[in-house]
């Protein structure tokens, strides 16, 4: 855990000493603010449901941009070999970098806490639903950061890594939309693959063990693939 913490600290510092985190944070809050304002204007409801659904989809494109630099940048600077040969377990490097991205996401979410405050001022929101909506967004962020990290481990070019990250994630969004195109008997099998299907319960105030499993498994699989991808450099 010591190595994970060291890695986490290093990555987080690298985010915040450069303008990246701030530009990213500003862009994210701008998009979130727009979604929130539109949601409030169109529905007049004291709820984050519109915001949470749209932010989750936005994260498909935004989070790979956040994680794209992790390994691609190290490779570009020629520090990856050094990092991989340092006396730090490989899994600690992967988890540390992932945890740093997730922490940045948590800070981004903290920046949106003004929205519940606004809802509480003008209405009577359901705090239980609000809490689970944030948990859902956090679960999505954990999963997407893992996928983004994996794409970063594959390619040398940052932009390409970011793009591939989004390409990996888009099918998990579209599969929910494709449900209507497949025969009924297939729809039940396809549905559990959909990201929105698993996020929906969170936005209704319900914590479902299978939704939690989906996001935990999603994260674990991509962290594992990242680990294998980096490990492959030893024998390639």
């Amino acid at each position: 855990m010591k190595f994970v913490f060291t890695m986490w600290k290093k990555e987080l510092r690298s985010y915040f000493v450069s303008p990246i985190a701030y530009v990213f944070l500003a862009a994210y809050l701008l998009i979130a603010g727009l979604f929130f304002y539109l949601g409030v204007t169109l529905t007049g409801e004291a709820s984050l449901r519109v915001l949470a659904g749209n932010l989750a989809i936005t994260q498909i494109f935004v989070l790979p941009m956040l994680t794209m630099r992790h390994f691609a940048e190290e490779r570009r600077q020629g520090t990856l070999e050094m990092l991989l040969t340092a006396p730090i377990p490989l899994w600690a490097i992967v988890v540390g970098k992932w945890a740093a991205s997730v922490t940045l996401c948590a800070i981004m979410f903290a920046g949106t806490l003004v929205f519940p405050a606004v809802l509480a001022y003008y209405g009577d929101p359901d705090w239980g639903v609000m809490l689970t909506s944030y948990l859902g967004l956090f679960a999505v962020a954990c999963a997407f950061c893992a996928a983004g990290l994996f794409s970063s481990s594959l390619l040398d070019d940052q932009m390409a890594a970011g793009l591939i990250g989004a390409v990996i994630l888009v099918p998990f969004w579209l599969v929910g939309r494709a449900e209507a195109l497949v025969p009924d008997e297939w729809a039940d099998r396809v549905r559990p693959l959909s990201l929105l299907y698993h996020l929906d319960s969170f936005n209704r105030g319900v914590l479902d063990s299978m939704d939690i499993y989906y996001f935990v498994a999603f994260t674990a699989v991509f962290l594992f693939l990242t680990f294998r991808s980096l490990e492959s450099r030893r024998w390639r």
Partner: protein
Amino acid sequence: MNRNLQRRLATGSNAALVAVIMVLIVVFGYVLLEPFRIRVDFSATQSSRLMEDTQNKLRILEKDAIPVKITAFSAQEGKKEAYFKNRQLQDLVEEIDYASSVVEAEFVDFDRERLTAENLGVTEYGTVVIQRGEQRVDLKDRDLFRHVGKGADRAMEFLGEASVNRAFSQLMANNTRVVYALVGHGEMNPESREPDGLSDLGKALDQEHYELKRLDLVRDAKGGVPQVPEDAAAVIVVRPRVQIPALEQELLLAYLSAGGPLLFAVDPGGVIPEIFGRFGVAVPEGMVLDKLLVFPFPDRPVPRYRNHPITEALASETLVTLVSGVAPLQAAVPPREGIRSATLLETSRDGWIERGGELKGGNALFQPEIDAAGPATMALTLELGRDSGLVNRGQGRVIVLGDSDMLSNSLLTEGPGNLSFGVNALRWLVGDDGRLSVSGRPSAVRKLALTEEDLGQLRWVVIGLGPLLAMMVGAAVWSSRRGR
């Protein structure tokens, strides 16, 4: 093949295989864990939890193992409140689909999947079709949503679960029982859609497989011997305007004597059927009032539910039954032999029977020298045994309501508990005690109280403030590092 390539191939395929196995384990884990799914609802209203009664019905349907299909069609996009209607319907469909293995529920976009609509013969947006074998129940938008309040307080409530619940009852019931509403003496008409009609009650009972029919004892006899029809599961007498002739009252007593149940609803100052005296029920002069009232209506005391199978579920769900202008009721003390009475609705301790006197600010006051102190009874039940001398077969059940409006179109769908109260009262009367349940737990949308001006200010706070602060902090960090 050189040894290096061989080694890379072997290690590469091993890595790929392990990755595939990992994905398969995860998928297998999902399939394995799904039957042990756990859900916890954190919402304040427990909105995703189905009512106990709905769950019971789903269990019965599962036992029967006859597949049930629910097809919910979307509301018309662009129409006011379509977003909320679709969302609430979608949530309900998902919850029912999750809760039962024999019920297949799906939400269908009416515009995109016209073929599905055509196949089911659905022509209206927002229709829900529930099919079980050959049987089918269609729920329309008006069955699923209702508006409550006036002006700025007007809000939409979703009654979807209650409607689907009733549709399940309808599909499970094998035969329809007839409830007759006595007419001919100025009573409320079961076919009238006017505020003082009973058409809403008829519709609600129809969903429960009870058919509400008019009964004119004299005219229906067509010159023959008048009598209550043999197929009558119950007879209701709601607010007669003139005294029911002695002959007809005797016919009602004969019906009761044969085990037939009766329901009477009267109003203050209205006609009181003389047979009340035979049951030991008195209707004292005055009107029931209470400090606890439905603001701003001084004649609408908030009834308290007494412990009874009819009101048990209503009390637990804290659904208020609206009443308007209530006549006080009194059961004989000590009770008549063979008659057991039970209070259904009464006022709080601050309630009283108003008998005139001074007004304060336009509202009546309790004046001990004129009025009678509460709690005052607003509705009661009677169970008549054979030793009462009034019943020869079975057990006679009678319900007396001190208000007729609570069953009328004006209040039945307005009050959160009226529909359930009315349906439950009928269920109890006809002996369907097992089906007593809440017939509606409406869920409403939590709206914001925002003005145009608020929205203008909000725009800058939610869109501009966050990014601006982030950029300012970023600029500060950047400039401090540049200075080093």
